[in-house]
Each structure stands twice: as structure tokens, then as C-alpha cells.
């Protein structure tokens, strides 16, 4: 299953090569042109029947994880967060280190040795380390280098009735949706922009948009789904099972109302379930695509992901199907009714 392959591929910000290679091999049969720009964005073009307008779909390839920043005398690796990671969710997780996926364990003190005050305190990033089974610093240095990426060793697989669990759903679900969309030809040129370094500050997308110069852009993202205990309903951002989330604004950008309205009209006309994302926190690549040159009309559609930015996220399989479907129907509507901008 392609989504599982994408989810399990390793690629923290700046080290997206494995994800890029996987996407490249998937889309090559379907697109007319592929290039990788100087900072690593993968940009694919499927030429249109008319080709008078250019529509860009964007999703980021990078995921949150850790990076090796030091090796101590015992051969244990010191780490820093790569992107927004909560250190409280890291203890005792299995990880892969570096390009050759060396297994590692995030160490923790056994309960026998904990002091009373330790029990009340979450471990912070400075006191976490990764154990790759090296005897000492010299051995460890043969296996890893400073700057190597560390990703969670999480299998992507079905969970319960109609759910999936896996890492990096943010934003491999978006990559997956674009790969599916690139299989179909439209009147306009369709550009798939698989961007780098979103998780460290939306860095890739602006560069991609500057080169592509789209007439319209849609960002396909993964977003929070906090429909959980303790949160009052008005604090839910999205709810899994209610369909893809159309985003009218977030902290980085106000979605172009014409695109947002077209997404809603398309979903309603086809009976595809959708929800409007309720909270306006967090940024997306739209915040860099929108202000490119004289401005690019852009909006965001997001996949609800529980436990986002943790070693394991949970998504609803129906949502995934509807997310891919609505993206495709939206593109069809651009053929049938023209671009709304």
C-alpha cells in the first residue's frame, strides 16, 4: 500500500531524499516533467489539454523527528528535536538512525532507580538519549555522524475498524493525494510540488511557488484532530471520520475565499463528507505560497490526524479516501467551471 510506504519512509526536514526518491518513482509514469530544485523540492508537471493555466498542488515531504547532535563517552547519542516534537512522548520509543536505518532505542531510567521527584517530572530533550547498541564513543562514531536524522520506527498498518496508524501522516497523506491526482490529465497544467523543510518554518514552499508561478494553489496537509477527553467541543480542531477539513484560515494565511467556497460547493454537490477546521492556530505552506511575487490565490485542505507530531498518528480510512476524492473532484471542477480566480 502506497500510503504505508510513504509513512514508513524516513525524511526529517533537510533530509528528504528517501521520501523524494519514493515519490519520484511513483509519479514518473504519469507526469511529463520532473525536476528537483536547488533546495530539494520535487516539482512534477502533468501538462494539460489546453495548458493555458497552471494549478499547483503542494504537500511537504519532511516529517518531525530528531537529529544527532552529540555522542558521549558511553556511545549514547544526544539529540535535538527536528521540528515540533514534545519530549514527553519520546521516552522508550524505537527509532531508526541515519540513512542506513540503524535501529535505536530512546533510553529511560528504570522505575527501580527513579527518585520520588523524578516521577512528577517529564523528561526534557537534554536528558534524553538514543542507544544504538554501541560500546563506546569510538564504536558509535563508526555507525553514525552528527546531523544524522532519527525517525520513529513505526509500522503503518490498519487499526481497529476502519482506522490506520503510522508515523509522519503529516504530511505523507498530502503527498499521497497529489500522487493520485497526478494520474489524471486536466485542461490546465497540473503541478505537484513536494516541498522540503515545512516543519522548520515553511521554508521550501515559497521557493517552489516562485519557480512554478501558479495561477491557483491548493495545499494538502495533515492537521490536528483533538476530539479527545478534556477538550470542550468548541476546542476541537477537526474530528476523524467527518471527512477532509477545509481550512478558511490559519496562523500563516487567510485561505482565498473563492477556492474555499469552490471546495465546499464541490463536496456538497458530490455528497463527499467534509468539515471546516475550527481552530486557526498553526502554519502551513500556504503562508509562503500566498505572498509569492504579486500574490498567489491559495487555500488549504487538511487530513484530520490524531496524535500528530508524535511517534504514531491515527487517521480514519474513510477520511483518506474522501480527501483524495475531494482533491480530484476539485480539479475536475476547474475543468468544468474554470478556475474561480
Amino acid at each position, binding site marked *: 500500500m502506497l500510503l504505508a510506504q510513504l509513512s514508513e519512509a524516513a525524511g526529517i526536514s533537510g533530509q528528504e531524499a528517501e521520501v523524494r526518491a519514493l515519490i519520484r518513482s511513483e509519479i514518473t509514469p504519469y507526469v511529463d516533467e520532473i525536476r528537483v530544485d536547488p533546495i530539494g523540492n520535487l516539482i512534477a508537471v502533468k501538462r494539460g489539454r489546453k495548458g493555458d493555466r497552471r494549478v499547483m498542488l503542494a504537500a511537504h515531504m519532511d516529517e518531525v523527528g530528531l537529529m544527532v547532535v552529540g555522542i558521549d563517552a558511553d556511545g549514547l547519542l544526544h539529540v535535538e528535536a527536528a521540528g515540533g516534537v514534545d519530549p514527553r512522548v519520546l521516552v522508550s520509543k524505537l527509532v531508526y538512525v541515519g540513512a542506513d536505518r540503524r535501529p535505536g532505542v530512546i533510553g529511560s531510567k528504570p522505575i527501580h532507580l527513579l527518585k520520588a521527584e523524578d516521577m512528577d517530572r517529564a523528561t526534557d530533550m537534554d536528558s534524553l538519549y538514543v542507544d544504538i547498541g554501541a560500546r563506546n564513543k569510538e564504536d558509535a562514531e563508526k555507525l553514525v555522524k552528527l546531523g544524522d536524522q532519527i525517525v520513529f520506527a513505526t509500522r503503518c498498518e490498519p487499526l481497529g475498524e476502519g482506522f490506520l496508524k503510522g508515523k509522519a501522516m503529516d504530511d505523507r497523506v498530502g503527498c499521497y493525494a497529489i500522487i493520485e491526482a497526478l494520474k489524471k490529465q486536466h485542461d490546465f497544467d497540473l503541478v505537484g510540488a513536494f516541498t522540503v523543510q515545512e516543519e522548520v518554518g515553511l521554508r521550501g514552499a515559497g521557493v517552489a511557488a516562485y519557480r512554478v508561478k501558479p495561477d491557483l494553489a491548493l495545499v494538502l496537509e495533515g492537521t490536528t484532530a483533538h476530539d479527545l477527553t478534556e477538550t470542550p*467541543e*468548541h*476546542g*476541537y480542531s477537526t474530528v476523524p471520520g467527518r471527512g477532509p477539513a477545509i481550512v*478558511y*484560515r490559519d496562523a500563516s*494565511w*487567510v485561505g482565498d*475565499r473563492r477556492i*474555499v467556497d469552490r471546495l465546499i460547493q464541490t463536496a456538497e454537490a458530490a455528497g463527499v463528507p467534509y468539515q*471546516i477546521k*475550527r*481552530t*486557526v492556530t498553526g502554519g502551513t505552506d500556504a503562508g509562503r505560497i*500566498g*505572498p*509569492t*511575487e*504579486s*500574490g*498567489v*490565490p491559495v487555500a488549504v485542505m487538511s487530513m484530520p490526524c490524531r496524535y500528530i507530531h508524535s511517534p504514531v498518528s491515527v487517521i480514519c480510512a474513510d477520511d483518506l479516501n474522501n480527501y483524495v476524492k475531494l482533491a480530484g473532484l476539485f480539479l475536475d471542477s476547474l475543468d468544468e467551471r474554470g478556475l474561480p*480566480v
Partner: protein
Amino acid sequence: MKDLVKKLSQGFGPSGSEDQIRSIIRSEVEQYADEIRVDAMGNLICRVAPKAAASGSAPKRIMVDAHMDEIGIVVSYIDDKGFVRFSPVGGLSPHVLLGQKVVFADGTVGVFGTEKLDDIKDLKFDKMFIDIGARDRAEAQAKVGIGDAAAMVGSFADMGVRVSGKAMDDRIACLVLIEAMRRARPQVHEVYYVFAVQEELGLRGARTAAYGINPDVGIAVDVTLWGDTPEHAPFNVSLGGGAAIKAKDASLIAHPAVKNLMIDAAEKNGIPYQLEVLERGGTDAGAIALTREGVPSGTISVPCRYVHTPAEMVDMGDVDACVRLLTAVVEELASPGGGGIL
């Protein structure tokens, strides 16, 4: 002039929902502009051609900017009983909202309520809701939808020399631009008057407008804070002290040539002015200055008390000084000498 101040202040246009205020401004400026366009983000861009092109060279471009958006709120959720939850648009304090009304684009009015609080210090946006007088969710959804923006209700008060109302930030500067458009006669260079969107969300509109115009010099007009009310933090700007010429804020160090041109123009024309260094906050000049290869930019500020509340206050004497200063600066820049900059 106060009639137009009132009309602009009362116009509806929270960041990202500037359609109504753009129409109001457009109808005011159409008679003065040689060409008007609206860019992809919604910026209203008005070109005023010079009387005569400079001999042997293309006219340079002068960008003058005021933002037309205002702070407000956006609907994030509607509950079973028809209460509306919201998020702020722009820099808003929850305490300002108590007892306050908001209005949506279609005229729907809402009032703010709060959950039970043990201490008023606990007041946060997520403890608040808007009551639009709906009896249940269906009735509320017939009036407002998630993503709809609303603006503060703030009546206009003519206090004589001074006036108060909502959205003086930055409609008073829109007025300054409109008046300068009416008065200034550019000789040899083009002037682009931009009424920008989404300033309150991070100078977003000015950035794309400036890229499109590719100006040779940029001037933003915006409000600034005040330092002359009881026990206020020290700040070298007072209401009635004249046009404020910006030296620095968090977004920009004014280009020395632009700042000095403003000072010289004020001195030469007997326009009262005060110099301003603002520690926090920025203006569209910060975005214009960093466009493409960089644009020499500066800001003229209208002193304004109680900024980002529904009762902002400005002094019409300061407004007049800003109009005269902007007119003089534009004419100087658009002259064959280019103000020593172009």
C-alpha cells in the same frame, strides 16, 4: 473631511474580508486615478500618472500605502444552543471585548459573553463566546458560518478638534492617501496609491503589492501610539503634536534619505512634526522595504490613542499635518529632482 473620516471608519473590513471597505475607497478615488486594479490578494492599486514624462527616461515609481483592513474576530464554532465561538483577527485583547458588540458583513450583530470566571484575570478568548440572539444552532447557522469575520462596533464621535471611532487604524491613513491623491500633482514620476489588505496579520498585502509595482521608493502611512495620557509609558509622540515621522519600529529602520526628505519637507512647509521610535509593532513600510532587491522606505504616522480598541482617537490637526506632509513629499519625489532619491 470629517464626513469622509466617519464613512471610512464605519466601513466594514476585517483582515481577509476587505470587499466592502475596498468598494467604499474605490468610489472615493476613482476620480483621481488614471488606472485602478485589484491584485490577487485584494489590494486596491491606484496609479496616478505624471503631468509629463521625464525627458529621455521612463518614469520612476513611487508607492504610497495605507492598509484598509481592521482588527476583528472570525467564527470558529457554533454550539447546539447557537452560541458562537471565535478566534481573534489581529492584535486584540480579550478585555477589550467585554460589553462590546461586533457586526458581520451582512449586518448581523453579536454581543460578547463569558463562561463563569473565578477571577477576571482568567479571561481568555477560549472562555468567551458571541451571542447573536439565535435560539439554537440552526438559527445561528442561518446567520453566520464558520470562517465568517466580524468587525468591532464603534460609533463615530465628533469631539471638535479630535474624533473617535473604530478602525482609525488605519482608515485615518486611507483618508490621508485619498486627500494626497486629490492634492498632489506629480510632475515626472508615477505615484501608486495602495490600499492594502491583511496588514494586521503581518504586513501581508503590502508585500505582494510592492512586488507587483516594483517601486523605486515606498512610503507607508499608518497610526502610531501615544505617550501623553496619565501615567503612560514614555513615548515621544503626543496627540496634537503634528505628523509623526518614523525613525524606527520593529519592522523597519526608515531609510535615512526618505526620513530626511520628510523632515525637510515639514520644515520647508511649516508643517508640525514629531520624530518617532516605536519599540513594538510595524507598518507596511517594513514589507515594502524588503521587496525584491530592496526599496528605500519610510513611514508617516498619525498619532492615535487607544489603538486596537473600538474607540480609537485622532486629532484632526495631526491629520491635516499628515495630509500636507504626504502631499509635499510625493510632489518632491515626483519632481525632476526626485527628492534626491529617485
